[in-house]
């Protein structure tokens, strides 16, 4: 099989899989109604609003907001992970963990990225004519 045909075929499969993920979402954490009466967790959510025990939270990456009920008052803007039981479309929180540095993996990755480039660049060079990495 030609190299480009192989690449194209794999790309078609990836696109199909991606389309499937559109039809059947992989991360459904935010639709709490699907977890009614079950234990459920929400990771890295930002507190948008608090009205007494009710807190409106949303993933730090954006998306839909949900209502959670806590017996402590969380500061608006703080980032937490929550675990609890879903009742009437709300998460009744049993335990929570406050994240002081939620973006830590990204800070550390900014150091990991140059290491990766250095390792790759030491062994490989990109050949623009054949659109392929060749050994140095």
């Amino acid at each position, binding site marked *: 099989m030609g*190299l480009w045909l*192989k*690449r194209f075929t*794999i*790309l078609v*499969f*990836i696109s199909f*899989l*991606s389309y*499937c*993920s*559109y039809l*059947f979402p*992989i*991360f459904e*954490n935010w639709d709490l109604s699907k977890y009614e009466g079950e*234990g*459920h*967790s929400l*990771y*890295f959510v930002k507190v948008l609003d608090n009205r007494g025990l009710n807190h409106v939270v949303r993933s730090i990456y*954006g*998306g839909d907001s949900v209502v959670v009920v806590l017996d402590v008052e969380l500061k608006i803007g703080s980032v937490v*992970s*929550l*675990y609890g039981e879903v009742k009437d479309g709300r998460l009744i929180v049993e*335990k929570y*963990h406050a*994240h*002081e*540095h*939620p*973006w*830590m*993996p*990204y*800070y*550390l*990755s900014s*150091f*990991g*990225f140059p*290491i*990766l480039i250095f*390792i*790759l660049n*030491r*062994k*490989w060079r990109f*050949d623009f004519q054949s*659109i*392929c*990495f*060749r*050994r140095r």
Partner: protein
Amino acid sequence: MPDWITHVSVAFLITLALGIKENRSLVILGSVLPDAVKFSFFLSFLSSFNPFVVFHTALGTLLFAALLSTFFDTAWRRGFSLILLGSASHLLLDSLHGPYGDYYWFLWPLWTGYTNFGFVWHDSYLPALFSSSAALAALLYKKGYIFIRPRK
């Protein structure tokens, strides 16, 4: 996700443990491959749908590794298996996240059960500290800067 320092360090340690000398860099490249899911960041202004989310699943990783290995001047099977090894280490490390359970569907669409064991928080710097220290010590030992004398 653990940070890339952890992923790169663990991939390096795996290559040492398995005695992979040639094309070690492909395992290291594979170890960050599933984080292609973050490409969505550049498209987030267009749509909330993330077309790259499949890269963080076993099947998506398999296909991406197959695609990427065609871009390297090495035997395709060899390149594919090395990149896949790195990617597997990535998914395995990410499985250690989320102490509250149910976080990732790694085996989607084959199985929609949660597969994380969960004992470390994502924002912990400890995995990076331990893995990079171990990788550095292994590198120095390999280069001959650290000598371990046998007991008499």
